[in-house]
């Protein structure tokens, strides 16, 4: 009991000072509200921005997830160190390179080269110019995992014989005014007759992946596409690995194969790029972190501004209550107790501001969630943002309350008692 007495007394003084501070705040309502406005705004913006940002991040990541964690992309690139030695056309993926990857990269399950072209498309009276048409392989169906809602998918025979067949989506049916059951109909693609063999389902995609409003989609066998435009190139290839944990291996193996085929010396840069979904997610997370940090700096500045408001009002409070301080000192209050009283008051003020700010921020997030942006639907303040904003507010209270509190604690008791 005797050992704990000092601790108990400290707790008692602390609780007394907290009560005193609350009473002080209660007695000066308007002043308190005005003073803490800065803190309220700062905290509300932390909650709001962090909530929106993390909601967006979650939304985008979910979007990526939908894309598939097993997805691998590769394409030719021209790094600065290669400029002048090669042109961008020469670094594009070649058919033999695709074959070599297919053959040697074991951790890769499927691979599909993508050969883009832009052609005019005509059905009866309707002529559409410049329709993006993609030459694909049958593995595309499995990698993209898109259902064929009518007709059939591409088979190896279509590829081997470079048949004039195509798979389109519902948007294309609509645009070309095709009959609802379009399978078996013929269209003119770049002036040649193509038979529609399948209708592929339309996938809702977020705007950042070229979705939003659905585009007319037109797919033909890659061999047909190459015949149609011999001067084209493989824009990129996409594959799926057997196990998402193999991401690093897949990248390393593909890199190895391509470097070997392109005879790239060890000290030379890659003339291609291999990306797995995880890398893209990491990149996105980096961007999100930078955004969070920028916001953090802005919020910190507003907290400082709010803190200066607190300091100002605490200085007023100290000078208003000089006589009370003098009395407390005459009654034997240790200078540190006086210091603590005013520090606690500043901290309580800041925390009150933080509480209101958190409430305002949450209300704001409620509004954000109801905004017509799919990406912001998951907007919610993460626990760490709430804890951080409360912590920063308390720190601002201590930091900016210190000067007035020290001033109060150093007051001479007689001078303070005589203060008018």
């Amino acid at each position, binding site marked *: 009991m005797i050992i704990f*007495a*000092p601790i108990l*007394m400290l707790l*008692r*003084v602390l609780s*007394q000072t907290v009560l005193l501070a609350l*009473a002080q705040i209660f*007695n000066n309502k308007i002043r308190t509200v005005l003073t803490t406005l800065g803190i309220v705004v700062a905290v509300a913006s932390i909650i709001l921005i962090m909530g929106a940002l993390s909601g967006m991040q979650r939304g985008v990541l979910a979007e990526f997830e939908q894309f598939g964690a097993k997805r691998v992309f590769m394409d030719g690139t021209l790094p600065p160190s290669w400029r002048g030695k090669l042109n961008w056309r020469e670094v594009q993926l070649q058919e033999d390179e695709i074959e070599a990857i297919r053959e040697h990269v074991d951790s890769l399950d499927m691979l599909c080269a993508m050969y883009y072209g832009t052609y005019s498309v005509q059905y009866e009276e309707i002529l559409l110019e410049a329709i993006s048409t993609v030459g694909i392989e049958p593995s595309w169906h499995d990698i993209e995992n898109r259902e064929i809602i009518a007709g059939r998918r591409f088979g190896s025979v279509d590829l081997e014989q470079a048949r004039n067949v195509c798979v389109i989506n519902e948007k294309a049916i609509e645009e070309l005014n095709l009959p609802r059951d379009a399978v078996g109909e013929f269209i003119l693609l770049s002036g040649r007759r193509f038979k529609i063999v399948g209708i592929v389902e339309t996938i809702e995609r977020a705007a950042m992946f070229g979705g939003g409003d659905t585009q007319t989609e037109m797919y033909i066998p890659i061999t047909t596409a190459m015949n149609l435009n011999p001067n084209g190139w493989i824009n990129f290839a996409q594959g799926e690995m057997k196990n998402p944990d193999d991401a690093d291996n897949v990248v390393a193996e593909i890199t190895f194969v391509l470097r070997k085929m392109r005879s790239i010396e060890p000290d030379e840069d890659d003339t291609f790029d291999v990306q797995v979904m995880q890398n893209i997610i990491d990149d996105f997370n980096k961007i999100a972190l930078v955004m969070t940090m920028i916001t953090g700096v802005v919020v910190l500045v507003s907290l400082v501004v709010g803190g200066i408001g607190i300091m100002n009002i605490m200085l007023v409070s100290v000078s208003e209550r000089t*006589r*009370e301080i003098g*009395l*407390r*000192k*005459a*009654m*034997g*209050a*240790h*200078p*540190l*107790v006086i210091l603590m009283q005013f520090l606690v008051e500043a901290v309580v003020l800041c925390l009150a501001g933080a509480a209101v700010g958190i409430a305002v921020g949450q209300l704001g997030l409620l509004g954000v969630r109801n905004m017509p942006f799919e990406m912001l639907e998951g907007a919610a303040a993460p626990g760490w943002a709430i804890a951080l904003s409360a912590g920063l507010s308390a720190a601002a209270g201590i930091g900016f309350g210190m000067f007035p509190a020290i001033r109060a604690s150093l007051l*001479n*008791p*007689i001078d303070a*008692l005589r203060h008018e």
Partner: protein
Amino acid sequence: MTISIRNLEKVYKLGTEKGKALEVRALDGVSLDIEENEYVAIMGTSGSGKSTLMNILGCLDKPTGGEYSLSGIPVHKMSSAALAKVRNEQIGFVFQSFELLAKQTALKNVTLPMIYSRANWLGAKKRAKVALQRVGLGDRMHHRPNQLSGGQRQRVAVARALVNDPSILLADEPTGNLDSTTTDEIIALFQGLHDSGQTIVIVTHEEEVAGHAKRIVRLRDGKVVSDYPTEDDPVHQEFLRAKAATAVRLAEAAPA
């Protein structure tokens, strides 16, 4: 010995004039002993140094020279933090203007010194109630200062001063803001406290109030000019004679 001071000096430096330091000697070598259970009045005109002496006795101010020991402890060299503890445990203050916290009840006001007490914070409320009953305000505990009369306010202040069982009760013009009826109230209260063994030092300029003390110390220009038991104090005896004469004359002049 409760209070023992030797050659106490308090010099205020007011800057320099024509190269010479300009200073005010508020206390100029005061020596004084006050025993336990004494009831002493310190008198003097304004500027005599009585308030300065009071502040130093109350450990609110530090002397610039001399020695002061309180209950055997030399306090003249203590730090302000150490003095805070001395004020809390050894000294009870009563101020001319009461100095009560306006927004708090009598009970809360009396509890105040115990918040800062290491020994008495346990059971503080009970002690505060006992102290209020002692000054006759047992039925006014939950009133705020603005709901109390001047005399009652000063009694709350006295209860607050006594609540930590101080070695000395220091009262600075305790009746200065009171009318004659309530002055009598407070004087009677002090008398009762003295009878129960409390050491009391009051500063006053009213002969009437000082007359209730058992000893009168008179200051002038920072020096003790007289120090007598009340019944031997020539100035006070003169005052009493004059007062008696006035009473007789008033009685004679009154219509029958």
